[in-house]
């Protein structure tokens, strides 16, 4: 079972991303769970969401405590939240940041696992024209762990977005995902 914890701020699409990747995995025949940690939701407040993906039915219904992957959608959270709490030994920390993985690793004094960075906000601005880094972060996640194949993720984007936002914006989202996959640095 792969467990992922997402850190974002209310309104940045962390919950949507956590569900999106789970739904893509469900489409690929996996068992899934995606749930946010509900508090008093306000735009801008730090939030956490969780995704579980497994080959067997998932019965556990407690929050993820030892994630394989931590995805930080807003880099400013690195200063206020212990994002690496419980990260497993060979886990991955994926951060939306223009900085090199080494810089993040030093900042957090992280010795274990892998660190990956991608400037998802820049990619989002250049592809979509708005700062919505959550979809590019899905591409970056696939780069660090093939939780689903790129083809499945892209067909999921088409399924979900085409009717809602039209072909042009859907393609922009797919571009963003592909660019993030390419531009992710791992260290």
């Amino acid at each position: 079972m792969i467990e992922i914890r997402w850190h974002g701020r209310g309104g940045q699409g962390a919950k949507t991303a956590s569900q999106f990747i789970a739904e893509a995995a469900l489409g690929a025949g996996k068992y899934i769970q995606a749930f946010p940690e509900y508090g008093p939701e306000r735009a801008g407040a730090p939030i956490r969401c969780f995704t579980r993906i497994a080959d067997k039915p998932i019965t556990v219904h407690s929050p993820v405590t030892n994630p394989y992957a931590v995805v930080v959608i807003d880099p400013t959270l690195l200063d206020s939240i212990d994002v690496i709490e419980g990260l497993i030994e060979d886990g991955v920390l994926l951060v939306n940041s223009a900085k090199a993985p080494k810089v993040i690793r030093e900042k957090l004094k992280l010795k274990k696992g892998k660190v990956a960075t991608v400037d998802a906000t820049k990619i989002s601005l250049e592809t979509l024209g708005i700062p919505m880094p959550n979809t590019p972060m899905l591409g970056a996640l696939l780069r660090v762990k093939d939780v689903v194949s790129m083809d499945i993720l892209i067909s999921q984007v088409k399924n979900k977005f085409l009717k809602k936002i039209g072909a042009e914006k859907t393609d922009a989202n797919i571009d963003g995902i592909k660019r993030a996959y390419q531009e992710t640095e791992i260290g």
Partner: protein
Amino acid sequence: MAKITPLTGDQAVAEAMRQIDPDVVAAYPITPQTEIVMTFSQFVADGKVKTEFIPVESEHSAMSACVGSAAAGARTMTATSANGLALMWEIVYIAASMRLPIVMPVVNRALSGPINIHCDHSDSMGARDSGWIQMYAENGQEAYEDTILAIRIAERKDILLPVMVCQDGFITSHSVEGVELLEDKLVKDFIREYKPCMPTLLDTDKPVTYGPLDLQDFYFEHKRQQSEAMKNAMATIPKVMDEFNRTFGKSCNIIEEYKMDGAEVGIIVMSSTAGTAKVVVDELREQGLKVGLIRPRLFRPFPAQKIIDAISGLKAVAVLDRAESFSNCGGPLFNDIRAVMYNSEKKPLMLNYIFGLGGRDIFPKDIADVYKKLFKIVSANRAEESINYIGVRE
């Protein structure tokens, strides 16, 4: 073919309601039930159901409208949580005593105060003596199935009692999981076309009176009838579940026994926490420890004999309650289990744990600690403090 759809527990229940297509839904939104009403009212707006949706001004009105509608012979549903259920209170009892087969999903949430929107069972546990049948679902899939089952159970001539279909607020109600939705037509066939068993309020050819004054001379007889209906429910619900299982290839039961073969100690817990406990049982079994789990899916009527059969051979049992009764004698589930075991010749040592109040998380480690404690009291052959708390700060 049934298909697997990513849905929250709330959405799964709304899908069941869409398939049931009740004649009337009168409901008021309250967290964490809101998504049920929101999703269902969208189905109404989109013409996917023929339901008359009554957006009432309070839960008291919601249940009052349901009582009127059900007495008029309409298949009737509502849904609520916590303070909403509390505001319905007097009509909740009236619905049961007027023998109206209303089905109400309840998304379990702590009943204030201090105000809290997260999961515990204090809301529906308070209504355990109201005369409603209560089912508790482990996940969204079960909440969906229970909602369909509840229609058949409530409307049976030998039962005619309203049913609450409970699931854990946020934990399952707002968690997306793959839910296997049954085919619309098969669900419709299973629940059948609604034919009220009692004369209805709007039948002008045979006028009747619902809800008259009922004093010392007949009230007790009507209560005795309700007890009888609950006895019938105990006998009949397994049969309805069998039919459901045969029709849809499922394995519903009024209690679930998980890895109880050869178990020495066991935990009894309802709803989503049972799922978390299963992970612990699997781990401990791999270590060779003889542990098992029992999960009542039906709480009212109480599956007494099944519980006796399941646990009387154990050495020790822990009952986990997601509600406090403030009796100093343990939580509501513990009280019922300890009471039914009085009639059993063999009695395991028994502990009670209160957990998860106001949405306090419970982790596999907490449950593993309970099993550890059970083995400890088995070797000491003595249960010390019978009432304990998980996850509260001292």
